[in-house]
């Protein structure tokens, strides 16, 4: 059953490549994603009892934390593919290239799903690297000079990160083999941790953090991010956000939980340092940004920073809150990008200063954008409000109070900045000279509306309460992470 998750997207690719018409290709991909969500849900149910579901010992399997990431990825993929169908129907690109879009998308998904499923660390590295290579042509899908340049920047800089990370991975293996272990799996690494040389693993972890941090666009390694998010299609932005704020924190926190067992290893200091710099830097970038796609991209960096900081704090409550933040952000961010995508279909502009009075032009799009924007900014009654509150509560009660205080000020800055930009776009009065205001009403494709609705469900539900099975599962995921505490 674990295998089916990886095989279903490949089946969708095979059907598309075999010459299925565009409509079929899209819906087959959606169907495969839907089946993956169901399977991920079942796996999550099994893994929430605290025991990993193993497909091949030492190689493939998911623990509670991994199954959670898998569910977030599959759910994001489902809505992103649904949204893609409507989004592509608005473009005049040749059908052949649109079919290739689904092929690349499914290849990307296979690599993305593999990240939490692989137990061998070198293969986790490969899967993460392949997510870049398979998404390059999705980022540059528009094939304008700007889109191609964005794709190039994205590919070069994130692959550069991967190359730095492999050096860290090799050093880590060196430390492990010097301690007398040979199998390079999560479990063996944890077993060998107390005997690892602190000098080596500290540098190894720093290299891996910088390498994967480049891929997660941690500040100051975020140079590729503004262009990439400006040019990539909206559903791709949604998937990249899940990759950056769920899959990569999963790998880094998993690694940190094992390496910190090595006496004297510097792990949490680095995580908190880069986490705080990213959260703070992104909050400032949000203030000065001119494009709403970049605005939400910076907000992804901010959330990744918050997650890493909370994950490095010394309390189980903080770890619990960090995982909760992963969940709430990965559910909310796609919703925001879909809302922004629909708003783009209405106004046709990316610059914040050129978008005014969305609410008066289309009340429902305006209110959806407003709600989604407030949800990502961290306003109640949405999911992120509760998880951010949990992080602050856990942080203020723990020994890293200063970090929690800094985080809270960054959260407030970004909240104010996001709502400021949001209010200007959604409220405000439409420009009198704007002829587009008199243009015929835009019809939003039905699949986009379905995607938006489906994506909104968990955001609203988790904003009100945490269902009992989810709470149970969160605790199991925290245990698999926090067991690394000495």
């Amino acid at each position, binding site marked *: 059953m674990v295998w089916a998750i990886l095989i279903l997207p490949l089946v969708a690719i095979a059907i598309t490549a075999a010459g299925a018409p565009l409509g079929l290709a899209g819906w087959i991909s959606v169907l495969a994603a839907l089946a993956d969500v169901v399977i991920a849900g079942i796996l999550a149910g099994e893994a929430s009892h605290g025991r990993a579901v193993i497909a091949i010992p030492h190689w493939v399997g998911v623990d509670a934390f991994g199954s959670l990431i898998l569910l977030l990825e599959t759910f994001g993929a489902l809505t992103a593919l649904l949204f893609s169908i409507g989004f592509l129907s608005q473009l*005049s*690109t*040749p059908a052949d*290239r649109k079919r290739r879009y689904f092929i690349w998308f499914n290849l990307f998904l296979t690599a993305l799903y593999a990240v939490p499923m692989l137990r*061998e660390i*070198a*293969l986790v*590295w*490969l899967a993460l*690297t*392949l997510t870049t*290579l398979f998404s*390059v*042509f999705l980022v*540059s899908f528009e*094939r*304008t*000079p700007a889109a*191609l*340049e964005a*794709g*190039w920047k994205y*590919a*070069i800089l994130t*692959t*550069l990160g*991967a*190359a*730095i990370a*492999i*050096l860290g*991975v*090799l*050093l880590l*293996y*060196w430390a492990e*083999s010097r301690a007398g272990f*040979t*199998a*390079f799996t999560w479990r063996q690494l944890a077993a060998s941790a107390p005997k690892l*040389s602190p*000098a*080596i693993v500290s*540098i190894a972890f720093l290299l891996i953090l910088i390498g994967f941090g480049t891929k997660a666009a941690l500040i100051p390694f975020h140079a590729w991010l503004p262009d990439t998010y400006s040019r990539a299609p909206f559903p791709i932005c949604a998937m990249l956000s899940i990759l950056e704020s769920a899959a990569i924190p999963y790998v880094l926190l998993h690694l940190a939980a094992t390496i910190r067992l090595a006496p004297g290893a510097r792990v949490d200091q680095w995580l908190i340092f880069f986490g705080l710099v990213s959260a703070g830097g992104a909050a400032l970038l949000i203030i000065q940004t001119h494009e709403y796609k970049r605005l939400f991209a910076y907000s992804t960096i901010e959330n990744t920073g918050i997650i890493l900081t909370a994950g490095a704090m010394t309390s189980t409550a903080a770890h619990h809150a960090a995982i909760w933040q992963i969940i709430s952000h990965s559910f909310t961010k796609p919703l925001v990008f879909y809302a922004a995508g629909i708003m783009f279909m209405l106004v046709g502009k990316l610059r914040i200063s050129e978008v005014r009075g969305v609410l008066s032009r289309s009340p429902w799009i305006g209110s959806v954008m407003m709600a989604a924007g407030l949800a990502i900014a961290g306003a109640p009654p949405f999911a992120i409000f509760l998880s951010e509150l949990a992080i602050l509560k856990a942080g203020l009660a723990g020994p890293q109070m200063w970090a929690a205080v800094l985080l809270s000020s960054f959260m407030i800055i970004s909240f104010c900045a996001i709502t400021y930009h949001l209010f200007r776009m959604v409220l405000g009065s439409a420009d009198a000279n704007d002829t587009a205001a008199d243009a015929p009403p835009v019809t939003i494709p039905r699949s986009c509306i379905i995607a938006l609705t489906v994506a909104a469900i968990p955001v609203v539900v988790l904003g009100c309460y945490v269902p009992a099975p989810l709470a149970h599962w969160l605790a199991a995921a925290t245990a698999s992470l926090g067991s690394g505490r000495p």
Partner: protein
Amino acid sequence: MTPDKVAWIHELILLVAGFFLLCSFGLIAASQVMGCLRVYVIQSLLLAASAVLLGIDYHSADLWIVAAIAIVAKAVLIPFLLRRTARHDMIARRELQQAISVPMSLLIALALTVLAYYIVDPMMDHTSRSVHANLPIGFAAVLIAIYTITVRREALPQMLSLLAIENGAFFAGIAIAPNFPLIGELAAAFDVLMVVLTLGVLSTQIHRLSGSTEVGTLSELMED
């Protein structure tokens, strides 16, 4: 092995390491695309040579397989793939532009080499002589290649510098982790080929687009 032979092997390992570092400098100094490619291929062959020597030193047959993978993937397949995907005028003879002049860049590369020795120093307790040769040089190659990416302005030299980072990482890797799971080596080789394919196609698309200015006809031109 006799002590004599061991000493010999170590001398050779040091020699190869020296040439390997020289190739990193060469990648900065090369003034043409084909020159960059040639330097990269030579560097990959030196990586393979070092793996063979270390294989003898460590009595590890795995490293010979690593050497074979390096030769096949980097010295044969990559030049082949590049010639297939890149258009002729992308690799034709012409002077490459650099953001910082070559002599200045070489000085910076020298400083980076010193920095690499400084970084690896705390890790060097109780390590073998081969690690002493390869680990700092691998680190230096990584740092220099990162620097090279930032100063190169053209697509293919940037990509080759990117691949040189991976070379540097594995140059250190073969010394410190001779038993690194082969699946990891295969993963890296596969990744390198994917990088070349993806970036090769992408840079060709960019080249085609920048050769043409009329946006309306561009969607016709673009086929991969």
